[in-house]
């Protein structure tokens, strides 16, 4: 990754988004990988790894809640911020711009459902 890579440069281990903070943008990874961390028993647990082309922080675009997870650079990362106001203005003009985000969010809900079903299945087996 060079000066020809777009976005902001983050060093390995650097926090890009912190859980609980108020956000006004989402990010698209231009290079490198990030970890999605949630807190469990006072420790950070990595629940997903996102790669180049993936985005995160999209919930801040659609709702006013605080960030739901911490995003940490795994190695060097370049991430491009998409500002909420400019993005929503464009979505207002061209609603299909939001389609890819909706597709991804739907995908994430499906994955979560699968994980939940798997966890419930394991619990019933244990009983």
């Amino acid at each position, binding site marked *: 990754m060079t000066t*020809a890579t*777009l976005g902001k440069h983050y060093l390995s281990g650097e926090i890009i988004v912190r859980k609980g903070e108020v956000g006004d*943008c989402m990010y*698209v990874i231009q290079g490198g990988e990030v970890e999605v961390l949630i807190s469990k028993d006072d420790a950070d647990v990595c629940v997903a790894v996102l790669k180049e082309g993936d*985005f995160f922080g999209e919930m801040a675009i659609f709702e006013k809640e605080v960030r739901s997870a911490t995003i940490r650079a795994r190695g060097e990362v370049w991430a*491009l*911020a998409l500002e909420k106001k400019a993005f929503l203005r*464009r979505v207002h*003009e061209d609603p*299909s711009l939001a389609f890819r985000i909706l597709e991804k969010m739907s995908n994430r809900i499906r994955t979560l459902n699968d994980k939940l079903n798997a966890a419930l299945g394991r619990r019933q087996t244990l009983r």
Partner: protein
Amino acid sequence: MPNSPALNAAKAPPLELTDGSRVGIIGGGPAGSFFAYFLLHIAQRVGLDLRVDIYEARDFSALAPMGCNMCGGIISESLVQHLAAEGINLPPTVVQRGIDSYYLHMDVGSVRIETPLHEMRIAAVHRGAGPRGAKLPLRFRGFDGYLLELAEAKGAQVVRKRVGSVVWDDGRPQVTTPDGARQTYDLLAVAAGVNTSTLKLFQGLKPDYKAPVSTKTYICEFLLGEETIRKHLGSSMHVFLLNLPRLEFAAFIPKGDYLTFCLLGHDIDSGLVQTFLASREVKRCLPPGWEPPKDFCHCSPRLSIHGAKHPFADRLIFIGDCGVTRLYKDGIGAAYRTAKAAAVAAIFAGVSEDAFRRHFWPACRRISNDNRIGQLVFAVTHLIQKLRFLRRGVGKMVSGEQQRPGARRRMSLVLWDTFTGSAPYRDVFLRCLHPAFWGRLFWDTLAGNLHPNHTSSRG
């Protein structure tokens, strides 16, 4: 009643795209490639099978002028973001340099303005493979070639031929190439830009179409080498507001090994270019003792300054520069917006004139209405360029904003959006209406003229 109008109307193919419909696109620049890409993307999403041909005789892998669409090569902050949201992330093989700031150079000093989020948010690219005489192998790919490949990957066919004529064939546009091959389409999109004679083909076909009004610009490429560019120009665009006769605007855009120089004005000739390059403000940005080489890649493309009239009809649509584009800035962003609006209209509302009026024209109208405000914004810029006491005030205000941590960057944002094309001109205008903006400008103009020190800020 074998020839009754009612029967003919019943026989006429519907003015909508259905499975197997054929779409022709004249021009494989950004507007044509974006149109093909989004048309096929949306068609695939709704399960529609379309056949798309793009007529582009130019080979974008060839060095200029054979493979270049002649443009400064700036992808605006807003377009970079929108493309990222669409899933099109410009790769480092295409982006020659990420731009994170710009310098405004005036005779009263220079100020540096950073991107609001301190990121590389603007992409400097070459439209073609590279300038004339560039060393092979090339380190970067051209932006237009990259987009055309994206369209091809979606399923578009690139026809490497010029278009010889366009006629109506039973109510549908028919394209003939110089080798005599004919193809009839259910929809023809014209994305030929304004630097072509192709638009003359439509004089008989659509007499009410009036091509955009355009003006001449001057663009050239200087080979400086990456290290020299890094040392002297960095990752900043350099904008010059100099009080030179016939000069409206000038900018240096640093790229990989090259520096692109864009000049906008009236009757630009070599004399004006030489005067500009010899000015103190320009020399300050370049390596000491640097002189322009005798032979370098340059062109004088036309730039649309007033949109086309009636850029659509049944089964025919004009997108990008040959339709409606943005005044002076972000022409590629306007190509993206009009191309996508046309694709959405064609898939969901049909290819009739009425469908385009209701679903494509509003996107064009938004741009042309904004251009009217843009004319006002550039008139004010022109005034600043002419009046030294105002230049002092603007310079002092920006310098103060950049040096005071946490200060509201009112003038910086106005200039940033004006010169980078990152926001609609309407936003720029509304920001200028704020009383605090005028209050500060008045105060800084007064202070700047009472104590006229040279302005210099590095952000």
